[in-house]
């Protein structure tokens, strides 16, 4: 009784501390620019690329929607005011902040319950939750439109679940409440919260590990209890945990992504991160519901895109490689944007020409030559007078690829490319657009057309290097597919097959990790180091403005500690509670 009364009190104090002056500051603070913007994307149903899984942003979007946010306010950059000059509110930011703050408060309640369950001491529980309430870092973190309060809540809720579940198991068989509906309830609750933690931010994986370790310790205890626990019962315990703590979180994680793809179907600038097939599912994208010729033929005009993340188009433009004779060396580069210079004509190699009609589809192993549509030059490996290939500018062990004038007959063999389909694909029917992935092998030089993720220097106009690779190790740069194919007069057309859900899931994770790997610390960046966190060494500024009222919100560091080593609050509470109880 006493404990529930105190629970209510603590929650009330928590709410008050978090909601006090929540409308200040009246402009976009710090990462609100990201998460507010992304909530807007969900409301506008625009596809975007982000390093975090979708649940947190979905929750913020839901709160925003409930508050009347219509997705028009763009949260462009920190410092943008939420009001117009005459004082009308542009977006219901307060509702969104309050929503996040509620999650931040619930976390405190969860910690109260955890400590009470572990120690059965009201004092310890009150102390630990008061420490969290008075932690200015936690206050600051919970007051803005951020993912952290949401993640912290789910994190501690899952710890609460597992603590409650194992408290229900006792060695005395009469009081043992394993496999009661109550016990199942907590275990399922844990599983759901774990899934949610992981779907808000991937650092939630550490919570999964913590809960997993707790479950293993539980099982280890049961295993040693040879008198009470039969092997069969142990098996049941094990199965229940596998079901609730492994399969359930995975199902929730996948479900959240399913929902995410279901909601977002508008094209945006972030499209370039995704593959062509993925793009074809987005409304407003060039490829959406586009009908294309069923097969690529010997007379097709097409654009080709690499299968790497942020794959680029095979591009050529009338500029030359530096220090080369001009007739030999029109640049061939990788370009991420759709452009007129990405178009190529396929032509059969002369010897074969007679027997080929317009609409004969290309097959695996066919020899073709590729002509740049705008400049009418053909793709070739660059060779010098001694018939040796020329080194590429960055990957110097590859040979250089250039567009060469068609009249220039020397080294004609080096203009012939053989199409090799990726294994596991249907070889019998011809090569199709978008779906069929192939390699272009230069027969004379015995190398394949290769895209590296390296930018060319200034003369390359910030585009990427394309070269010809002689080895076999880095095959991932060698795979291409046709993206747009110009329809010819009487060929059968077909629409692009939409990718399956699992393909999308896999691809969006590749994009997430790719974006994450791009975030790198460099000299002069103002970031704190992990050891700073433990001793609260550095503050991190959330917002700061020089006006007469001078509202400056500072954030005594814990921000990063709270996100990365989430068990900190618990560590504090454990420290206190153990002192009080024993």
């Amino acid at each position: 009784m006493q404990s529930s009364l105190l629970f209510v009190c603590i929650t009330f104090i928590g709410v008050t501390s978090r909601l006090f002056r929540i409308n200040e500051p009246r402009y976009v603070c710090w990462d609100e620019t990201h998460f507010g913007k992304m909530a807007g994307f969900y409301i506008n149903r625009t596809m975007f690329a982000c390093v975090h899984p979708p649940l947190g942003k979905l929750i913020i979007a839901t709160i925003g929607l409930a508050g009347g946010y219509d997705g028009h306010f763009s949260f462009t950059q920190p410092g943008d005011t939420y009001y117009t000059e005459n004082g009308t509110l542009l977006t219901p930011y307060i509702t969104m902040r309050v929503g996040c703050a509620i999650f931040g408060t619930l976390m405190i309640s969860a910690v109260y319950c955890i400590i009470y369950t572990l120690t059965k001491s009201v004092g310890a529980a009150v102390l630990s939750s008061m420490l969290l309430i008075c932690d200015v870092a936690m206050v600051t973190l919970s007051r803005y439109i951020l993912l952290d309060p949401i993640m912290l809540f789910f994190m501690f809720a899952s710890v609460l679940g597992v603590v409650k579940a194992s408290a229900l198991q006792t060695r005395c068989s009469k009081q043992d409440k394993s496999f009661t509906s109550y016990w199942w309830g907590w275990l399922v609750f844990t599983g759901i919260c774990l899934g949610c933690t992981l779907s808000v931010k991937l650092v939630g994986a550490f919570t999964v590990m913590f809960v997993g370790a707790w479950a293993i310790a539980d099982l280890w205890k049961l295993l040693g209890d040879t008198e009470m626990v039969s092997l069969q019962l142990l098996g049941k315990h094990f199965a229940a945990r596998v079901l609730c703590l492994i399969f359930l979180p995975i199902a929730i994680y996948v479900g959240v992504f399913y929902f995410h793809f279901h909601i977002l179907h508008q094209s945006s600038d972030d499209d370039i991160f995704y593959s062509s097939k993925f793009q074809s599912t987005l409304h407003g994208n060039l490829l959406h519901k586009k009908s294309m010729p069923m097969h690529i033929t010997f007379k097709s005009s097409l654009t080709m895109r690499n299968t790497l993340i942020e794959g680029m188009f095979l591009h050529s433009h009338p500029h030359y490689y530096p220090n080369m004779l001009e007739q030999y060396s029109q640049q061939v580069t990788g370009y991420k944007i759709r452009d007129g210079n990405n178009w190529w004509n396929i032509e059969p190699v002369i010897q074969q020409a007679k027997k080929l009609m317009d609409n004969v589809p290309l097959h695996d192993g066919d020899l073709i030559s590729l002509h740049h549509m705008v400049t009418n030059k053909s793709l070739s490996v660059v060779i010098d007078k001694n018939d040796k290939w020329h080194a590429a500018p960055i990957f110097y062990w590859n040979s250089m690829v250039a567009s060469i004038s068609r009249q220039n007959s020397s080294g004609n063999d080096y203009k012939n490319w053989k199409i090799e389909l990726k294994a596991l694909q249907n070889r019998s029917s011809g090569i199709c657009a978008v779906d069929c992935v192939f390699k272009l092998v230069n027969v004379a030089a015995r190398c394949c057309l290769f895209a590296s993720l390296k930018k060319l220097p200034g003369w390359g106009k910030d585009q990427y290097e394309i070269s010809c690779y002689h080895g076999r190790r880095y095959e991932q740069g060698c795979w291409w597919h046709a993206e747009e194919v110009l329809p010819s007069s009487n060929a059968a057309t077909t629409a692009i097959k939409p990718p399956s859900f699992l393909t999308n899931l896999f691809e969006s994770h590749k994009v997430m990790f790719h974006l994450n790997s791009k975030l790198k610390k460099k000299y002069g960046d103002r970031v704190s180091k992990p050891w700073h966190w433990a001793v609260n060494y550095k503050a991190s500024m959330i917002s700061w403005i020089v006006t007469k009222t001078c509202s400056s919100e500072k954030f005594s560091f814990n921000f990063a500690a709270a996100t990365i080593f989430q068990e900190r609050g618990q560590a504090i509470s454990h420290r206190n509670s153990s002192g009080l109880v024993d």
Partner: protein
Amino acid sequence: MLQKFMDYLCKIDHGIVGICFLTVVGMYNRCCDLHYPNSVTFDEVHYGSVTTLYSSQRFHIDKQPPLFRLLLFNLFPNYFSTVSMWENIGKDFPDQFSPQAIRLLPAILGTLLIPTAFGVVLKLGFTVDAALLAAILVTFDNALVIQSRFMVADSLQLILVLLSIFFAVIKSWFCFVLSSIFIGLAMSVHLSSLALWIVIIMLALSKAWEICTDRKVSLAHGFGKGCLYIVSSILVPIFVLLMCTTVHLKSVNLSGPHDILMSSTFQASLDGGLKSDGSIVKYGSVIRLRATGDIPPYGSCYLNSIAQIYPLTHEDGRGSSGQQVVGCSYKASSWNVLHPTNFDSQNMEVRDGDFILLIHSNTNGTLNTHDVAAPVSKYKQEVSCVNLNEMHSPKMQTWKVHVVNTNGNKAWKNLHSKVLFEHVNTGFYLVVTGNTLPEWGLGSLEVATEGLDETGDCATEWNAETIPSSKKTSSYKIIHETFNNVVEYLGMTWFLSLQSGPDHRFASEPYEWPFGQSSIAYWYNSTTNAQLHFTGNIASWCGGILISSLLIINCILFALYQRRNHAIANDRLHLWQKSVYALMILGSAYVFHMAYYIIVVPSPKFAYQYLPSVVCLHMLQACALEVFYCYCERLALIVIFIYVASVIWCYWILRSITFGFATKCQEELEHLQLWQSWDLPLT
């Protein structure tokens, strides 16, 4: 007589015979035909060219600590008298220098690996047969063989690491100190031995725990001895590493090619390096300004100005009229320190809190910053040089000097003081942003100004290096404490080892190593089509992963079984304890070494960096096979026999690219392509 001798022979343990035989075989495949190929091969070019710098005693630094190169130079000084010998890969050795002699050292060390691996497995408590098995695996590993046949540091590192493990498992404090010495030496060869150092420290902790909890020993005695173990495992390796570096620095005391990377005080300690005509910066001094600390990507950064205007216009149409101020990795230009108002105040000392003007000597521009975005970092202020006689008054370009390490004395000391420059008008501080300028900057770093952060930290602290005026020729060398220099040298080595290099055709990622999916071409002869490749023995590498995983599973299952209070035979329990001990040492050495390469080291990474892990894996799988033998004798015996046969068979197949035999036809090479991912050049 003969009878007696035969009797004596019969008494000899089959282990000794076996290990002698294997050592001879190992000697044969590592030390035979070392003169072939008679040209510089792969990394020899690196070791060779760096080691030649010892002959001129010029200062140099490398990505790794110096022990191997130091050893090479002192053993074979005449091989390293000219750089031209080591200029590029494939260059033939001159007639009077046969590569045989110099390659013999790594080859012998590589051979010693075989008995040492044998010894380690024995000391871990396993039988002679298991130890022989480990020795067989080490003998017939193509990767270990080829890496011992060239002048590269790996076999030295491997033998030191193995000796360290060997002595660490012997129960005596003296041996433990020996082990710490060996790990210190291994770290002085290659920084990746840090991973094993952690294992040794772990072992020390576990031994200390064992001694402290032993009731037979008094607490004080046990505690003291435990501390002794821990302290020696930590301090001895550090001491050895520092000593090796000291020897290196003593033998290269002349100014050399890599001076520029080091701090000003370090440079002053080298003969022919930086000199100073006075220890305090004065008004009128001509100085160079160097950003302290290691600044990527070059390590050093000097303040420089170029007589060109920033070629930029910002979105609001504003551009800069001042000339570029950039950071350079070399000593490009000097600056004149002047008083902002009183130009007659020559030779007055500059102190903390004083105001100065900085005039660029070559162009007479004054260092200035103003409210225009920096070229790359748009939220910082641009720094430029302006001419004083234009509309700019000197007041606008005044900088305030903040000496960070004042030590009571507020003077701005040459070389020693770390200084911040605050622009008086805007309150912003001069920093290197860490960005490289676009192409017009020719690879220079961006210099800008920014405010302090909340804790009052500034990204860049500066260092003055005064340039002696022509009148004063007498200069004195600052004798800096060797200790500081050694620490700085090691810090720079660590920094360099963390810098990523350009992509390499044969670079690979750690996840490709365990199954030997990566190969490296060392040498190629186009006339005979003979090729040398670094490839692992696929059978023992893949088999090792499988067998060791089985051992881990076995240990876990056994622990579960025990927890269930099942009665366990004593010998089985003993076997389990043995295998857990072996796993703790060899398994964690494997894992830490891999983790070092996955987490710490940037690309490019090469497959031969996996070798320390491989040796641990070979020993671990030998232990595992003994455990399986104890469980099912007959079956295990057959499996082990087949396994060893397949390992030797795999070695035999790959020998032509390990030793560089001439290959006649294309097909032969294609047969050797055991993994699709191997990059054997086919002509």
